[in-house]
């Protein structure tokens, strides 16, 4: 009860002192009362229960009640043994009370300090973001220190500040080196304020500011400086753990992404192998069939020529597929395709590509819009033919047979821009960024038309090998336009 309510405790102890004084007053002026030793009890109780204040006040009260009787005795019998003994008893109490009280107070303060350090480490071991941890720590320190605490911690270029007073924030930033203000505000009672830097390895990482209405003695300021060291170390640990966790998370994300990519690649290659087998088998079947027919039967010269033409076309198709495989292999090794650059007139190149696309039926669907005076491009003729054939073949494959495919060629400041437009179903927006990836085929394209998923990847690598650029625009239900830009002959 005494410890919980100091004022009540002091009143109880005061009453005890007065009671003892009344008991001790019975003796005559020539002898000291044995009751005087009983003063030690409230003094000890005051010191143990209320610390230095209790010990000092009770000892002073004991002295004040003893003093009149002591004076009377000194006056009656002089400064003899009895009076000296009583004086020594009183002096002993005056030393004992404050001394014992100081020890008790200091022991309690030490206990509080250890508890505060423990609270700091407990709070900073939390896994929440730094701003939340700092706020939680500030609230715990407010309670433990009975003061207004501000914690400012530098996080890169910015400050994270836990505190409610903008002025404290200013002071914290201005006085990161630490300072003590005996009075920080013009209130009825002084506002003591201490700013202590939070340092790790000689570098200031923040500042702890404590403001209290009342005393902030030197011993407590030293303790706060020590507490700041604990906070700094715990904050640094928390930062390191957070950084390690973030690094581990990033690593896990990277591994997961790489695994996903490898799995996707593996799936694409499986699809590619199945598709490539099919693509190779078709011309091979035709070649085997017509060669067997020619070997085992007699045909008219006209029929022989027709079958030879089919075999020639299938052989070119086979060669084209094998060329694609070789280019893909080169692409995966990071090598640029070999080019034999020459001046290539764009109009004839477009006409040649149109002619290669399955004869008059395909050619009937293609509209060529090429300015006659167009500057030639500097390109490998064979590579340019593959580029144009690929783009036109895609446009024909993925658009209805009753629609037209337009190919336009225009000059543009040192370049020639060739655009191939179709009126097909278009490409879905999520598939559009991936159309130049090797093996990629838009989900709705698979099954609608044969393809290896290599054509546009080849086209892109060839265009870039010419120091040109290519991009694709598409709108679902409207059509697709592929635009490539090649350097013109200067």
């Amino acid at each position, binding site marked *: 009860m005494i410890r919980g309510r100091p004022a009540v405790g002091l009143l109880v102890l005061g009453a005890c002192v007065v009671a003892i004084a009344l008991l001790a007053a019975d003796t005559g002026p020539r002898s000291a009362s044995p009751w005087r030793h009983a003063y030690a009890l409230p003094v000890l109780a005051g010191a143990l229960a209320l610390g230095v204040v209790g010990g000092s006040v009770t000892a002073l009260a004991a002295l004040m009640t003893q*003093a*009149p009787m002591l*004076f*009377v005795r000194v006056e009656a019998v002089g400064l003899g043994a009895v009076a000296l003994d009583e004086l020594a008893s009183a002096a002993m109490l005056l030393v004992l009370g404050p001394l014992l009280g100081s020890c008790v107070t200091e022991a309690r303060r030490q206990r509080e300090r250890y508890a505060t350090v423990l609270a700091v480490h407990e709070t900073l071991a939390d896994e929440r973001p730094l701003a939340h941890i700092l*706020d939680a720590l500030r609230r715990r320190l407010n309670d433990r220190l009975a003061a207004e605490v501000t914690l400012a911690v530098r996080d890169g270029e910015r400050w994270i500040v836990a505190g409610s007073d903008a*002025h404290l924030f200013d002071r914290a930033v201005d006085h990161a080196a630490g300072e003590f203000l*005996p009075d920080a505000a*013009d209130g009825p009672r002084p506002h003591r304020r201490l700013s202590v830097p939070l340092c790790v390895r000689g570098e200031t990482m923040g500042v702890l500011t404590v403001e209290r209405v009342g005393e902030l003695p030197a011993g407590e300021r030293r303790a706060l400086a020590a507490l700041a060291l604990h906070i700094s170390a715990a904050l640094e640990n928390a930062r390191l753990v957070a950084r390690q966790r973030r690094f581990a998370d990033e690593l896990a994300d990277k591994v997961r992404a790489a695994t996903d990519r490898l799995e996707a690649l593996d799936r694409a290659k499986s699809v590619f192998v199945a598709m490539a087998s099919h693509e190779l088998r078709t011309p091979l079947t035709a070649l085997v069939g017509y060669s067997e027919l020619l070997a085992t039967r007699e045909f008219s010269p006209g029929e022989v020529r027709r079958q030879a033409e089919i075999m020639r076309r299938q052989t070119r198709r086979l060669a084209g597929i094998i060329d694609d495989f070789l280019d893909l292999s080169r692409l995966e090794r990071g090598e640029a395709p070999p080019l034999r650059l020459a001046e290539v007139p764009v109009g004839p190149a477009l006409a040649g590509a149109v002619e290669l696309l399955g004869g008059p039926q395909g050619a009937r669907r293609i509209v060529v819009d090429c300015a006659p005076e167009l500057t030639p491009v500097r390109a490998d003729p064979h590579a340019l033919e593959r580029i144009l054939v690929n783009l036109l073949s895609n446009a024909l494959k993925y658009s209805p047979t009753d629609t037209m495919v337009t190919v336009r060629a225009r000059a543009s400041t040192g370049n020639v821009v060739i655009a191939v437009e179709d009126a097909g179903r278009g490409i879905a927006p999520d598939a559009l960024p991936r159309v130049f990836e090797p093996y990629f085929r838009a989900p709705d394209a698979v099954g609608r038309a044969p393809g290896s998923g290599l054509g546009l990847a080849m086209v892109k690598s060839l265009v870039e090998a010419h120091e040109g650029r290519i991009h694709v625009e598409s709108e679902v239900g409207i059509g697709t336009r592929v635009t490539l830009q090649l350097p013109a002959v200067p």
Partner: protein
Amino acid sequence: MITSRSTPDAARSAWPPGLLSGTPGNLLGVLVASLACCAALVDASWLPSSALRVVTVAVAHGGLVAIAFGWASTTPPQWRPLVPSAIFILILALAAAGACWDPRAAIFYLASPLWLAVLVVNGRLAPLGLRGQMPISGTLLGLATGLALGGHLLLAAAGTFGYRVRTDVQVLVAIAYDVGANVPSSELFFRGALFNRLQRRWSFAAAVTTATAGGLLRYLVDPLLPKAPEVIVGMLLYLTLLGVINAWLLWWSGSLVPGLVSALVFFAAYRMVAAV
């Protein structure tokens, strides 16, 4: 959570004011000169000795109060302390003169607390711990302190030196002097001004030690207080306790009222002690 800086506050950056900032040097000079002139005139028998007593009361207590007013006036909102100080000094001079002429005129000393009350209502003395509202618990504690110390003084004086308690008109005159001059000047200057200003620079212990030592010194040089050795020794103890406790009461409650109450009660008891 604060992430941006506020606008610097010039008034806060100027806090606390200098240790002697606001001291009315000119007024103190005039008071000291008046005292010296009066002493010279009394010495030359041009004025009666009671004139010196009147001027001493006005200069000593009025000077302390003038310094307290001057220091209080430096805290925003700032005000001019000269006229309030002059009125307080004039009241003390008139009351002291009246008391010399007729002891019953000592009742005029009660005008100075009234003048202080006017200043308190106007909010002028808030920096000294005197505000409109009265802290009830603090005032009760001050009353208990005054009663305890005063009661102890009476008992100890009666028990040790055989002093009796007197209740004649001189006691009332002395109490009026305490109410109007002695206690207000001591508490306003040593606690409200000096202790208050020191504790904003130093620790509580250093501030209370200095202010209490100043109060004791003032007591030792006060010619109107008893000078018997046993009384001085006893009073040093009591005034030390009273000074420390009153400073703590001001620190604890933020108000000067508890200290004024405890000092008034104690000095009332002190005035009732009379040698056999």
